């Protein structure tokens, strides 16, 4: 690349406005679905709105990222631009970490303060007067008000499905690293194999996680409405699962790009960004495994 390449400033682009319209319509649609459902009204129109919004978003993602990929492959990006992308991805992942931190924080507060106080321990133990006889345990099988929040019959033990999922995800972090090294060595066939392995492991994780949810809902009566244990369990694992889905999609797209001949041994930031995101998802799972399942 040129020695003192000037920084590429793109021309005016239509994608931001399209993205805005897409996101606005999608979220307005989701809100309408929820509000209409709450009020017992028809949600068909809202679902239509949501799907239209989602289609606009998909169109935008292909278009915008397409532009970036084209510009990159045309050699318009200096090393400085590459650093901008790296900083961007790192800080984006940091913001996602903070998002999960909010939920882990809630879990911590509930387990260390709220539930013990309701059970009569500690500085605010007078809270026990609200529901006499409430026992503070964790996992919280018996909620303070079982009428309002019917409790689950049991919780998900860590050493069954969740352990398998842990092994799947940790292994997938290894496989993606092997793929990365292969890419740096220029061995494209090897890259494809190890990427496919990673994606298969990811899909395995998602399938098992879905099974776990079905088991929880149907057999254990462990739902979102099962008091604070159900709330935090599904919130944390649910958002994690959503991020795994996004990560898998990203990996799949990178695999498609490898197939199309994109990326060189030196220049493959798209791949690296997806790999970083994948490692982030794996680390969050380890946190979940310890704090939601085991302890």
């Amino acid at each position, binding site marked *: 690349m040129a020695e003192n390449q000037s*920084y590429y400033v793109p021309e005016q682009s239509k994608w931001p406005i399209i993205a805005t319209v897409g996101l*606005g319509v999608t979220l*307005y649609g989701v809100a309408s679905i929820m509000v209409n459902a709450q009020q017992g009204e028809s949600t068909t129109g809202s679902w239509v709105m949501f799907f239209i919004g989602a289609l606009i978003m998909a169109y935008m993602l292909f278009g915008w990222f397409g532009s970036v990929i084209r510009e990159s492959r045309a050699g318009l990006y200096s090393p400085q631009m590459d650093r901008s992308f790296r900083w961007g991805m790192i800080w984006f992942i940091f*913001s996602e970490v903070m998002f999960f*931190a909010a939920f882990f*924080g809630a879990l911590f507060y509930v387990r260390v303060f709220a539930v013990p106080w309701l059970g009569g321990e500690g500085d605010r133990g007078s809270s026990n007067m609200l529901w006499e006889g409430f026992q503070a345990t964790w996992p919280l099988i018996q909620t303070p008000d079982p009428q309002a929040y019917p409790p689950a019959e049991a919780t998900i033990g860590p050493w069954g499905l969740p352990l398998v999922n842990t092994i799947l995800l940790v292994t997938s972090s290894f496989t993606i690293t092997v793929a990365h090294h292969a890419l740096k060595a220029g061995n494209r066939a090897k890259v494809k194999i190890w990427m496919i392995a990673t994606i298969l492991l990811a899909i395995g994780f998602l399938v098992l996680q879905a099974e776990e949810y079905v088991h929880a809902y149907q057999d254990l009566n462990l739902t*979102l409405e099962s008091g604070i244990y159900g709330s935090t369990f599904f919130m944390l694992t649910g958002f994690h699962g959503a991020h795994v889905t996004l990560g898998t999609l990203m990996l799949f797209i990178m695999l498609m790009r490898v197939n199309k001949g994109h990326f060189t041994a030196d220049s493959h930031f798209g791949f690296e960004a997806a790999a970083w995101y994948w490692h982030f998802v794996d680390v969050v799972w380890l946190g979940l495994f310890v704090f939601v399942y085991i302890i």
Partner: protein
Amino acid sequence: MYLIFSFTMFLLGGTMAMVIRAELFQPGLQIVQPEFFNQMTTMHGLIMVFGAVMPAFVGLANWMIPLMIGAPDMALPRMNNWSFWLLPCAFLILVSTLFMQGGAPNFGWTFYAPLSTTYGPPSTTFFIFAVHIMGISSIMGAINVIATILNLRAPGMTLMKMPLFVWTWLITAFLLIAVMPVLAGVVTMMLMDINFGTSFFNAAGGGDPVLFQHVFWFFGHPEVYIMILPAFGAVSHIIPAFSRKPLFGYASMVYAVGAIALLSFVVWAHHMFTVGIPITGQLFFMYATMLIAVPTGVKVFNWVATMFRGSLSFEAPMLFAVAFVILFTIGGFSGLMLAIAPADFQYHDTYFVVAHFHYVLVPGAIFGIFASAYFWLPKWTGHMYDETLAKTHFWLSFIGMNLAFFPMHFLGLAGMPRRIPDYALQFADFNMVSSIGAFMFGATQLLFLLIVVKCVKGGKEAPAKPWDGAEGLEWTVPSPAPYHTFATPPEVK
């Protein structure tokens, strides 16, 4: 674009404030019903915080940071554009809630659960998504700022040579990325509680309404620093320019901003002293909060020291900047009073708190924005603004603002609670004074609109550097700044 949007939102939020003050002008319910009054107080807060102050500073950042560091544009310009367009989208959704069945959010801009979850109107779900969109906009904007500042500085511009406005924005951006996701988290928990039967904030299921407050204020406290740090940066440019002296103590100013930002993460529960947190917690948060006064004091000292023995002139930017230093300090003093937990037991949720935050936000953030606008309007438009009109804007704003908010200190100490549409008779006189001041302040902003429009359309031609004491790369490019500047970066010694 950000600045036009912000100003529009400012006028909208201001109109709502006018409705509030009109109702509070006299005891008794004259103009609006309590339900609508609550919507006005809530929306006034939301629009001012998220629609006026934050976008204004982001707008200033987008324009000035590249100019100040010698970059052609922000690091990721298209993402930047998306950040902007998301704001009108979010506010369209938010303002549309006024017209939905059940009305707009009416639970205060801090939307505590369970008032907002169990007892909120149906529009609350839309409010939540609007907040999500604003959050996405802010996070992407902040990522862009960090990437730009860390990556695109002209060669030779080390971090400790950066202008203060750039430093304060670097730190603000870090705060934004750290806490906006937490806001997203709390608002999502609300959404789940409202629509999916979870019990995050409901003790019947083992949750806790106080959990809401903890998570919200973990976001909320850094948020108010996000709203003021850029103003600190701007004032650190303006005072040296009009004192014709370099900023006193550059390094200590940088460290002070860093210290304030770091401390801002560990003081959130000073908004919760009366909620029943254990005494150990109260003591910790009290001491930590009082500690923030130290770096802030350093900054105030340095601004004054910059002016000391300087060759002073008082054009509009300087008037606003000096008023900022004095009035923000008054706001800081009332904040220190609030930090003292046992004293806060009396002040909490009274008009004393309203006085405090309006003193730090209006002469703080808003005057900071006005000062910045006057300072950099010549650079943006190529014309000088009308100095006489600007000074009029200043004096009327200054008097109006003090009339509006100073009596609130006394009202709060006398016991007038917040967020009430009607009040006991002993509070009547000060309320009347406050309303008059508010009307005066509000009307004056229309004058500001006139000044800005007039300046955009024409006026005395501005040179590249209209202020003889000003320093910085932005003054080396012509006024108005060309569409793309610094295609090749300049050398910085």
